[in-house]
């Protein structure tokens, strides 16, 4: 009986801590983790896993590899969080790690064309693709059109030069400010704006025939 009560109390306490962590901003969660609260790291993972996965996936175009890289991001965060400069934004730091890993992945692919071919091939297998894009209530031709459009968009993004694509995704998908993008990509504000302008224009030109 006493055990049950104790377990319930622990559960209530755990829920309270989790709720408290959810209400905190990133900086406070990081502080909690560094203070010994292990659950704070789970909170950080929950907050960033989907965002990072989308960012990396849009950058490298391979879902499976994107998941591996996002895991690697969290491992690195876990390993080096004590060295994180808390006067800066945690999200910028995390995205910088993810961006660097994605960049390395693309660089490795360019050095090894076989890997590129395999990943591209895998990427275009239909069963690997997320299906939530389709609305089950839509008409089949509508579904086809949407899926087709999504593929075109993804292909178009993949066609952008790497440094343009990175800035483009950070801005349009992640909604980062120019300053944050400059910090993540390690370039100045003018370069960010210039790359963003070119990326937008290129993307619009490539996709225009399909949507006009």
């Amino acid at each position, binding site marked *: 009986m006493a055990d049950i009560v104790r377990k319930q109390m622990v559960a209530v306490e755990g829920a309270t801590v989790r709720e408290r962590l959810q209400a905190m901003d990133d900086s406070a969660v990081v502080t909690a983790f560094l203070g010994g609260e292990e659950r704070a790291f789970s909170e950080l993972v929950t907050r960033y896993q989907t965002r990072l*996965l989308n960012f990396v996936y849009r950058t490298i175009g391979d879902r499976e590899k994107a998941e591996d890289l996002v895991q690697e991001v969290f491992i690195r965060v876990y390993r080096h969080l004590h060295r994180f400069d808390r006067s800066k934004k945690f999200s910028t730091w995390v995205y910088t790690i993810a961006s660097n890993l994605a960049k390395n992945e693309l660089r490795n692919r360019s050095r090894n064309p076989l890997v590129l071919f395999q990943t591209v091939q895998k990427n275009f297998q239909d069963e690997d693709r997320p299906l939530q894009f389709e609305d089950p209530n839509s008409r089949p031709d509508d579904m086809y059109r949407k899926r087709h459009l999504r593929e075109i968009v993804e292909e178009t993004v993949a066609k952008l030069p790497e440094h343009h694509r990175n800035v483009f995704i950070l801005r349009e998908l992640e909604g980062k400010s120019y300053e944050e993008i400059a910090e993540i990509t390690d370039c100045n504000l003018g370069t960010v704006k210039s790359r963003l302008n070119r990326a937008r224009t290129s993307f*619009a030109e490539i996709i225009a025939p399909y949507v006009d």
Partner: protein
Amino acid sequence: MDCREFCDKHVAFVDDTLAGIELVRMQRHIAECEICARHDSRVRRALLIFRNLPTIEPSADFSQRLEARLRNECQPAELFANTQRNLRRGAIAATLASAAMLGYIATTLYRSDSPRDLVMPPVVASLPEPELTPITTSTPAIVTSVSAGLTIWPAALFAEQVPTRFAHSKLELANYTR
């Protein structure tokens, strides 16, 4: 505003970060320039499509895999911490053993029969006492035999004693005057 300036400021225009007057100038240019107006609408439409791409969710086993990797990540850290702890304990044990050994040596030395301290006698500078050479050769018989107060020394003794006595009296005199 010309088309070049419009293109330069288009990023800020789309992101709605332009100052009021600039915004008005851009809008006026769109109204006047068909090419720029088309470019603007094309970019906005493309961005709308891109921003509405469905987000992908992590796979079901994502968290489990991450937890497993984090656990592996923790293990070397724990091992390292344990090694550190063991090393620290070893160092403490070695220090204690050394201290005990030193204590033992000190105690052994303290208890030994050899003198603890080598006490040297104080160094005192002293003048040698005047050597009053006893008159060994004179016999009481000779001394007592002279009643007038004038000692009559044997010639040989006198010859032997006189230089010494003179020298000694000079030395004494010198000491007194110093």
